[in-house]
């Protein structure tokens, strides 16, 4: 038997430099916890991170039905502080960060001058003049480098604080109860009746403390479930992890690895850098046109995107065959995987698209995939054919996300 890994976050797929130039792996501040929990590890951007603890599927299902706890300490955290912080991020990122309120989070893109996607990030506005920008581990150096370079001329301090912060995600329908029940998490007492987490909205964050160290509690995540991401001092990470586990296990919480994280995000239709996103991808192609704010003043990538948009409007056809990101569903149990080619029919031999991520959906029971596809075939319900290692299988274009949680 030989094995060809697919699907799990793999920054090596993209041209962006990974952090793994050196032979020495980087270990999470939670490494001892993972070892004790019997994790299997995978290399991710030079980090040794848990791929699973017991079973990918059990971990996936726990997140859909109860909760999972993930170590995401490999993510890159970048502090942006100073009088010009908001104006700087309006220039450096694709969104209008100055319009976010203190305590609000925003999904955004770090674009190249040609409009390609250098990384996708979440920016938390933690103060009037302070933001925390979270980038992908595989793009750590390039994201920090781009922000530092773009900071020239702004009164702002860009600092890579990744080594200071661990990131623990608690995701699933029981996540809120678990975080509320976690011993040692203290919020500023500004509410009398309600628990602060009850009023924390989706894509907002608030400062807290754990063991007298600053803790940022954010209602964000990457699984399609309600959940929280806890940014904590590395020295407190192990104690916090254990406290969450102690509070969560009675509510069904299990530790969950990167394999479950990948199947969860794929069901939720969330793009992954190196798969759906990359330097050659423009935001609109990836379905992220709404993330780019043309109403604001100049930002990196603007001119290139406007040029593309104008040529498309005029039907100039100068763009590369502008493939668009679509969702696909299959039948049976056999998944179409990343890099498999799509065809109009079983007989046709000219590819019209390529799979970027695919898996047998653990929640839905049928194969799902995301793909870049020639727009003329991208209407929902269009039936296509995919080459699965020499066998053609049918796929149908379908709306994203594949899975949407029931909201209360």
């Amino acid at each position, binding site marked *: *038997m*030989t*094995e*060809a*890994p*697919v*699907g*799990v976050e793999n920054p090596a797929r993209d041209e962006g430099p990974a952090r793994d130039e050196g032979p020495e792996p980087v270990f999470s501040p939670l490494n001892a916890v993972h070892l004790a929990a019997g994790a*299997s590890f995978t290399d991710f951007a030079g980090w040794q991170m848990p*791929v*699973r603890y017991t*079973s*990918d*599927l*059990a971990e*996936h299902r726990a997140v859909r039905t109860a909760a999972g706890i993930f170590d995401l300490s490999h993510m890159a955290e970048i502090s942006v502080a100073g009088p010009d912080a908001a104006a700087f991020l309006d220039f450096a990122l694709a969104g209008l960060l100055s319009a976010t309120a203190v305590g609000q989070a925003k999904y955004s893109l770090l674009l190249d001058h040609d409009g390609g996607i250098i990384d996708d990030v979440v920016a938390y506005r933690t103060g009037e003049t302070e933001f925390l920008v979270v980038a992908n581990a595989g793009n750590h150096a390039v994201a920090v480098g781009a922000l530092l370079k773009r900071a020239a001329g702004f009164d702002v301090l860009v600092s890579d604080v990744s080594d200071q912060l661990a990131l623990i995600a608690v995701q699933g329908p029981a996540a809120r109860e678990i975080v509320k029940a976690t011993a040692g998490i203290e919020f500023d007492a500004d509410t009398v009746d309600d628990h602060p987490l009850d009023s924390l909205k989706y894509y907002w964050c608030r400062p807290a403390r754990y063991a007298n160290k600053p803790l940022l509690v954010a209602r964000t995540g990457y699984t399609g479930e309600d959940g929280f991401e806890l940014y904590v001092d590395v020295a407190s990470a192990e104690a916090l992890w254990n406290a969450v586990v102690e509070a969560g296990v009675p509510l069904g919480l299990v530790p969950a690895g990167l*394999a479950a994280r*990948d*199947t969860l995000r794929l069901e939720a239709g969330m793009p992954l850098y190196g798969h759906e996103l990359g330097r050659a991808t423009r935001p609109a192609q990836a379905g992220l046109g709404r993330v780019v704010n043309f109403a604001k003043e100049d930002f990196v990538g603007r001119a290139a995107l406007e040029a593309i948009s104008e040529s498309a409007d005029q039907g100039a056809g100068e763009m590369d065959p502008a493939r668009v990101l679509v969702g696909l569903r299959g039948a049976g*149990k*056999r*998944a179409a*995987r990343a890099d498999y080619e799509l065809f109009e029919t079983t007989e046709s031999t000219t590819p019209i698209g390529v799979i970027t991520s695919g*898996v*047998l959906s*653990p929640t839905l029971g049928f194969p799902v995939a995301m793909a870049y596809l020639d727009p003329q075939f991208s209407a929902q319900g269009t039936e296509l054919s995919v080459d699965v*290692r020499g066998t053609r299988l049918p796929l149908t274009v379908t709306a994203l996300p594949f899975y949407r949680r029931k909201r209360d």
Partner: protein
Amino acid sequence: MTDYSDLKFTAEHEWVRLDAAADGVSTRATIGITAYAAEKLGDVVYVDLPDEGSAIADGAVVGEIESTKSVGELFAPLTGVVLEKNSAVEESPELVNSDPFGEGWLIRVEFTELPELLSYADYQALTGDDGASA
């Protein structure tokens, strides 16, 4: 720990168990993948096995084992004809994870040629751990 010294192994993580024969010369074998391989694959969600009557040749790809994150190819560890495939595994691929040396067996083969295979000790040395433990 269970003793797997009655099994033979390949470097591609298949195991081979020779059937007991009355005359002591067995020409039948059961084949599966090792616990080490199942563990590395993750949760197996799809198994494609050769049908009864298929001729298989040593070293050829004869099946596929897919997990949530990987696609594994099943190589024939010997040359012969498939007597039976484990339909239970096609129905319930998780058997490969839960009982790789037992209910998670893959195919039974009548073989014409038995190549030199690894002993359990050799296989353990290859995987660098007690790779056969479930």
